[in-house]
């Protein structure tokens, strides 16, 4: 089972501050959606609404065609793993007991898989949860998030404190388990460079608004870097949306957002300009750049 999500003009306000401003999007089931946004872009607020942790102030949100707020069926099938572990600080339970107890809450929870993951993440099963390091606490949460196999699984910066090899294991497990048990995964992050290969689709938000939403390939196909002599580049790029430019001596390199027509590609080739792809990371960094940066 996997959930489709539809948001229409969803807004959330904190007193005078609009955290989410009339956001609309659709998320297809069975896919991994990368939710990208800078600090304070509204990612966690948006995810809180999806997880029914808060009500939206305006607009409508449906998960599997229903309003998730106080909806017992949707809520037990939505798991929200976030980067804070306040609860775990006061958990004096052993890890093995915690992993076993999750079956009480989640209909699709696979205990055997959870223990298998605990081994992979090297969690000491007989240790108490509150004694774990930050990274291990994150690993425990990640295990619960994966093994719950919830039709809507949300990871919000869930890798916090994990070292690079552990993060690798985490990403790999997401891909492996998703293949066998497809669900809707929302993976919120600002560590784009190391996670971009996970995403089927990308939803980028900035200052409470949707900046772009498309398949990962489509998003990447819209970014180019063009390198050549200063003069040539200035002439070539004058009608394009330039995200960033760098100069080294007489050579200039620009990052361009938008699709290049065949004509433009040919022109670039003829002029001897070097055209290359942009990474999702580059696009993210430069599309969300603020004016004073």
């Amino acid at each position: 089972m996997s959930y489709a999500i539809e948001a229409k003009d969803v807004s959330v306000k904190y007193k005078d501050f609009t955290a989410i401003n009339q956001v609309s999007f659709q998320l297809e089931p069975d896919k991994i959606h990368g939710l990208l946004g800078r600090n304070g872009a509204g990612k966690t607020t948006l995810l809180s609404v999806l997880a029914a942790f808060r009500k939206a102030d305006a607009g409508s949100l449906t998960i599997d065609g229903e309003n998730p707020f106080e909806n017992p069926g949707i809520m037990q099938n939505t798991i929200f793993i976030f980067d804070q572990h306040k609860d775990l600080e006061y958990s004096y339970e052993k890890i093995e007991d915690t992993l076993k107890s999750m079956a009480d809450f989640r209909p699709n929870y696979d205990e055997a898989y959870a223990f298998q993951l605990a081994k992979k993440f090297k969690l000491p099963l007989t240790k108490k949860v509150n004694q774990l390091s930050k990274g291990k606490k994150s690993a425990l949460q990640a295990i619960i998030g994966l093994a719950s196999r919830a039709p809507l699984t949300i990871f919000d910066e869930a890798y916090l404190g994990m070292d690079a090899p552990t993060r690798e294991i985490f990403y790999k497990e997401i891909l492996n388990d998703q293949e066998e048990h497809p669900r809707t995964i929302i993976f919120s992050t600002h560590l784009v460079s190391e996670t971009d290969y996970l995403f089927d689709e990308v939803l980028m938000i900035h200052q409470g608004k949707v900046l772009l939403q498309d398949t990962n390939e489509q998003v990447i196909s819209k970014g180019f870097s063009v390198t050549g002599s200063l003069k040539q580049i200035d002439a070539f790029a004058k009608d394009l949306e330039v995200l960033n430019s760098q100069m080294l001596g007489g050579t200039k390199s620009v990052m361009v957002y938008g699709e290049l027509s065949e004509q433009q590609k040919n022109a670039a080739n003829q002029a001897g300009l070097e055209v290359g792809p942009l990474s999702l990371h580059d696009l993210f960094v430069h599309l969300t750049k603020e004016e004073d940066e």
Partner: protein
Amino acid sequence: MNSIILTPKKITRLLFGEQVKWTMWFLSFMFVIYIVVVSLVSGPHSSFVDLASFSNGSSAIYMLVIGILTTTVFFPYYMQQGATRKNFFLGTMLASALLAITITVIIILLSFILQFAAGWAGWNIHTQEVDFTSSFSAFIYTFISFVISHLIYFLIGWVIGLTFYRAGWLYGMLSIAFGIICLGITGILLEITHISFFTQQINLPIFVSVPLSLVLIVILFVINHRLIKDVTVKI
């Protein structure tokens, strides 16, 4: 579509199981302290309150604390496990009533045991403070008063914790004032509570005081329901 697995009944079972564990620790400490104090101060010319009234103060405060912790500990936990606010509310409601009954039963049992032990050890224990042995009706009245006052303390704690969680410190402070007023009212209604604004007990007949206490309980449940039903879960 799976059926709902986090039903109010299940939340009650899980919450109550956890709270009983805490309660056993609390009552054991209380019992040990009591025994130590009694054996130190007890003598031919000294006397000491019996366990029922000795514990009522501390066990009521214990219920108040559990009530506050309901919002800071249990609520975020159950929300993270995918419970709805409504089912959590219903589960907490049942668990708190069960807990109030359980604490009362244990304290009364301990009091009986102590009376026997006191007779055997020659301790001088006042049994006049709370009367639950003179007649069956006195026992029932004491039992019901104990359960009601423990439940009210719990509910006041729950209101205070929830108000702080939902509306911040200013309203939280107001909720404490509200809690004190509720305890004052409980003091008028039930003899055994320890906070009373009046030096002289107004002795209301049982058929007035018990229904009025139940009304107070219902009001507190309604307030908690209003506070919890659309509260934002903080992360």
